[in-house]
Structures are given as structure tokens and as C-alpha cells.
């Protein structure tokens, strides 16, 4: 209390009582599923206990029910703001278990899509926490920019959010035609929106006062809790899985890791804004170095429509069909042979044969059957593997255990925002009630990933 004579703290027996308050699950700033039980003295937080688990949807148990490829739709919904990174994490963990290497073009596509997904995550996080501090227009600008990226993701994968784009051993389909110019245009528009947001927020007196100095996390706290990602980098430690243990083609691209200094909310905001720029740099380099496989099949003979091939195969007239190229939409419906090979690893145990071989030859049909039918599917050797990728909130690790069967024995997802939430109650105590909102906003807690 201020030592000034006139305004002393009241005599002892008249102490103010503390108030118990739950900043409960159904609260706009609590992203819907976090309950914080607060004990307040006036506006100062004396105790804070965080209650999670409101979005526990049994992800790890669900993965054990179906085959190895069945888990992809579940992994989209872990960190549903950057779903592609979850897919990449899970796919690489299973490929590490199988010991197979994916093709160069597939790695480039995976890096490109992961970085687009990371940008949407940072945009949503900054937009939501800015809106919770009152900057409504920043939220609307960033949602507009996010629509540009959602259009791109939808063009490649077919869905905006729950994409299930990857498969063990490759991706579902190649990039569509004209993807590179569309991406460059989307990046240019997004950069324009982001410069507006930067002008609005970065030197905004209200925003800076609310974010600076609140939710300060020291290096020791971060390491003791096992925190990674923008939260750790904002304290000054430059740990980024893409640089520390490079995977896919991250070591062949040049980009750098932005780090903060103090570790408060403002540093985390600056780290996320800088990371968006780095991700755009990576995407542009990926577009530049995309190994040009034959995007559309160079048709020696007359191209067949897929339905006629299917009818012929059903009538049994299959001689010579294997050599006939089929004009099939390169992305979703079927996958032409040449394109399939450059995008998926050519490993019969894991990747579905292209449609031409499935319908035209008995080996293709048997191969298709062996992979699809339950009891046969992908059967990695008995053992375990842990693969870590850099998620938007930190190291997203997948620990997969196989008993040799066609179903995963155990799939464990290391949630990056789980340790940060464990630290949250320590960050809140001693600060104002109003500081809970920016601190919780910069934690970027995603329910699906936290409660799995």
C-alpha cells in the first residue's frame, strides 16, 4: 500500500475480505472450456486454480480403434487452428516406425502446408487476444486475412479446417494447377493486412500498457515446466524443433528464429508476428524449389476418361489398360500413376496403388485390398517411435507404439500447450484480474490439443 500518510491501509481488524470467483468454462475470454477458480482481494488475484478437461474427447483411445490411416481425421481436431502440423507430426511418427523415407516433392508440400497452417494459427491467436483487449477491428482484419489462407488450404485439401490431407507415406493428392501464383497473391494480401495490424497494435499505448510487463515468465520457470514454442522463445531461449532437430527440408531453407527478451505478453505477441513473416519466407522458398514432377500426365496415347476404364475393367477387358494414361483430376478424385509416385513413397505395404492399377491389374487390386481391408492394413514392425515437430504452440510430439498388428497399440500426442497451462496459475497470482485476459490470450490454449 502506498506509504503516504493520509491513505494508510485500514486498521487490522477491518481487513477487506477475499472474494471467490470462477472465471468459468462458458466465458468469452476463456475460449469456452477453461475454468479458473480465483480468490480475489479487491482486484488482485490471491489464488488461481485452473481446471481443464472440459473438451476431453478420448483422442488417444479413438486412435486405437481403427487402422493407422484412420487416425488422421482425429489428429486434425487436436490443434484445430493449425491442423496440417498435427497431420505431419503423426504421419512422420508412423513413417519413422515403418522406417520409410517420403519423396522430395512430398516433403516440400508438407513443409509448405505446415507453414500456411502455422500462419493461420498465429493470426487466430493474435486476432482473438486483441479482440479480448478491445481491438475489434484487428480481429476482423485478421479473420479476413485468414480467409485468404483458408481458400488456399481448401484448394489443396478440399476442406478449410478438418483437412485429413496426409496419409502414411505421402499426401492424399498433389497440388492443384496454378497453385503457386494463387499462393503468392494470398501472401501479398496477407502481408498487407498484417502491416495494418502492426500499425494498429504494436505502438498502441493501450495495447502496450496492457501487454507489457504482464504474464512474465522466467527462463527457469519455462524449462522447469517443459515449455516450448513461442512461449519459451519469448524468454530468450532460441529452441525451435525445426532448427534444433531439423526434419523434412527445414535445414535446406534459410529462415531464422525470432526470440524475445523479457518473456511477457508483449514479447510473445512480437515473436508470433515475426514468426508469421518467417513462415511466409519459408513458403516462398518452398514454391521456388518445388521439384517439378510431371504435374499432369504426359499423355502418349489418347487419354481415357476414368469411368470408361472402370466399365472396361468390370467387363473384364483389362488387357493393355495399365499402359493407358487416364485423364483424372490431379487433386481429389483419382491419382494418376505418374503423379502418385512423385507424391507418395513407392512402397506397396503402405501406399494405395493408383486407380489405374487398382482397376486394371489383379496385383493392383490385391495390393489395394491388402491395405484397405481390416486385419490386413499397414502393419509396422512391433516397436515404438517418438517424432517431434514444431507445432504452433511448441514441440508437438507423437509417440506411437505398435504390436505388429494393423491397429496402433498406443498413440500419444505430446500437447505443446499443456505445460503452459500448468504454469498459468503461477503467472496469474499477484496480478490484476484484468491481466488474466491478455495472459490467457497469449498462452494460445487450444482445447482439442490440451484435453485431447
Amino acid at each position, binding site marked *: 500500500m502506498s506509504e503516504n500518510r493520509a491513505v494508510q491501509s485500514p486498521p487490522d481488524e477491518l481487513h477487506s475480505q477475499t472474494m471467490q470467483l470462477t472465471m*468459468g*468454462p*462458458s*466465458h*468469452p475470454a476463456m*475460449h*469456452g*472450456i477453461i475454468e479458473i477458480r480465483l480468490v480475489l482481494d479487491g482486484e488482485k488475484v490471491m489464488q488461481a486454480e485452473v481446471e481443464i*478437461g*472440459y*473438451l*476431453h*474427447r*478420448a483422442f488417444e*483411445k*479413438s486412435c486405437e480403434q481403427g487402422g493407422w490411416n484412420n487416425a488422421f*481425421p*482425429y489428429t*486434425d*481436431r487436436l490443434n*484445430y*487452428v493449425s491442423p496440417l502440423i498435427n497431420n505431419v507430426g503423426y504421419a512422420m511418427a508412423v513413417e519413422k516406425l515403418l522406417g520409410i523415407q517420403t519423396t522430395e516433392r512430398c516433403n516440400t508440400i508438407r513443409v509448405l502446408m505446415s507453414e500456411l497452417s502455422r500462419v493461420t494459427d498465429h493470426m*487466430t491467436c493474435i*486476432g*482473438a487476444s486483441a479482440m479480448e483487449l478491445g481491438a475489434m477491428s484487428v*480481429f*476482423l482484419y485478421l*479473420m*479476413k486475412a*485468414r*480467409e485468404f489462407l*483458408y481458400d488456399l488450404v481448401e484448394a489443396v485439401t478440399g476442406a*478449410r*479446417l*478438418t483437412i485429413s490431407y496426409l496419409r502414411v507415406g505421402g499426401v492424399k493428392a498433389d497440388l492443384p494447377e496454378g497453385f503457386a501464383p494463387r499462393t503468392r497473391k494470398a501472401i501479398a494480401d496477407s502481408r498487407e493486412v498484417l502491416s495494418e495490424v502492426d500499425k494498429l497494435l504494436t505502438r498502441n499505448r493501450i495495447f502496450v500498457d496492457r501487454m507489457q510487463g504482464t504474464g512474465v515468465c522466467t527462463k527457469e520457470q519455462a524449462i522447469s515446466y517443459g515449455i516450448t514454442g513461442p512461449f519459451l522463445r519469448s524468454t530468450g531461449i532460441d529452441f525451435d524443433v525445426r532448427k534444433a532437430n531439423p526434419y523434412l527440408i527445414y535445414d535446406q531453407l534459410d529462415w531464422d528464429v525470432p526470440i524475445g527478451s523479457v518473456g511477457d505478453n508483449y514479447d510473445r505477441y512480437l515473436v508470433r508476428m515475426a514468426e508469421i513473416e518467417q513462415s511466409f519466407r519459408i513458403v516462398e522458398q518452398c514454391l521456388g524449389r518445388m521439384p517439378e514432377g510431371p504435374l499432369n500426365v504426359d499423355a502418349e496415347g489418347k487419354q481415357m476418361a476414368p469411368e470408361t476404364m472402370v466399365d472396361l475393367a468390370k467387363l473384364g477387358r483389362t488387357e493393355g489398360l495399365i499402359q493407358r494414361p487416364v485423364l483424372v483430376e490431379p487433386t481429389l478424385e483419382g491419382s494418376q500413376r505418374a503423379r502418385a509416385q512423385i507424391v507418395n513413397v513407392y512402397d506397396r505395404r503402405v501406399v494405395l496403388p493408383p486407380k489405374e492399377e487398382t482397376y486394371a491389374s489383379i496385383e493392383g487390386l490385391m495390393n489395394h485390398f491388402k491395405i484397405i481391408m481390416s486385419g490386413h492394413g499397414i502393419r509396422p514392425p512391433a516397436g515404438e517411435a517418438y517424432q517431434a515437430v514444431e507445432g504452433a504452440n511448441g514441440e508437438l510430439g507423437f509417440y506411437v507404439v505398435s504390436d505388429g498388428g494393423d491397429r496402433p497399440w498406443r498413440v500419444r500426442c505430446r500437447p505443446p500447450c499443456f505445460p503452459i497451462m500448468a504454469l498459468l496459475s503461477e503467472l496469474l497470482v499477484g496480478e490484476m484480474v484484468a491481466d488474466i485476459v491478455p495472459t490467457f490470450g497469449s498462452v494460445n490454449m487450444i*482445447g*482439442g490439443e490440451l*484435453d485431447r
Partner: protein
Amino acid sequence: MGIGDRGLAGQAEAGAVHAGEGGWVSSKLDAAVAWARRWSLFQYPFVTACCGMEYMSLVSAHYDVDRFGAALPRFSPRQADVLFVVGTISHKIAPVLKNVYEQMCEPKWVVAFGVCTCTGGFYDNYATVQGIDTIVPVDLYIPGCPPTPEMVLDGIMKLQAKIDRQKQELV
């Protein structure tokens, strides 16, 4: 009058059990009150999971649900007419949903946004409530995982048609 006639085929079936006994819109007052209520839907976004991302796109500038008078989210059940249940409802948050629904004032409607709220989606397990109609009476089911904003806008139009068909609760 208004949207009522152009509404869906099969209009004559009884209106919602939910609000008011008879379904057939009789008096002019009903039509006027229905018109007022359907064009000023204040929603309580009970957001929990991935559908929340599509809800953000829905209320933002690009898809803009404000064209239907339904944009202003009211984060207190007292001031809300429509309860938007967005995202998976697990058993742990089910009582919260029940309390929030009970604390809303009539006339109130419930929109199940996303397949997890309609039937539990592909989370058929020990932790997820298999459809929120086991907890609260639901007026509108919007399937989709997550439903694209266009699907939700179509859903809101169907809700407005439903409000128009209902016998308005008065006094």
C-alpha cells in the same frame, strides 16, 4: 406474409413443440411479433471446439451473419435469444450447458452447430455426449464437421422460417 409463405415445403406440419401450442400463425399480432423476433436474434455463442473456428469466420466480415440481424453475440444468457451450441459437448461440460440454457429467458431457441452437437459426431466414446438433444431441447440442427459458414447461414434462414411459423408466446 413475409418469409412465412416462401418457407420450406411441408409448411403445414405443426410448428415447434418448443414455443407455444398451436403452429398455425393466426393473428396479425403474431405475424408482427414473429417478424420482430426473427430479425433480431441475439445469440449466446457456447463455443467449445473446432466449430468455433468456423463460428469466427461466420461472424467476421467475409460471411457476416449480421445481414440476418444475428451478429451481436451476447455473453450473458439473460440478454440472449438463441443459444448457439458450437463444438463438442463432453460429459464434464454438459451441466454447464444445462445451466446456461435454463438461465435464458423465453422466448429462446437452441441451435446445434456442428455434427458433434447433433449426434456426437465421430466421437462415439465414453467422454462425449451423443447429441445435445439429450440435455436441452434443440430447434435447429446444422450438420457438418465443421459446417461451412454458408451451411450455417442457410440454417439461420431455416430457423427464421421456423420462428415465423410458430405461434408466438405472448404473456
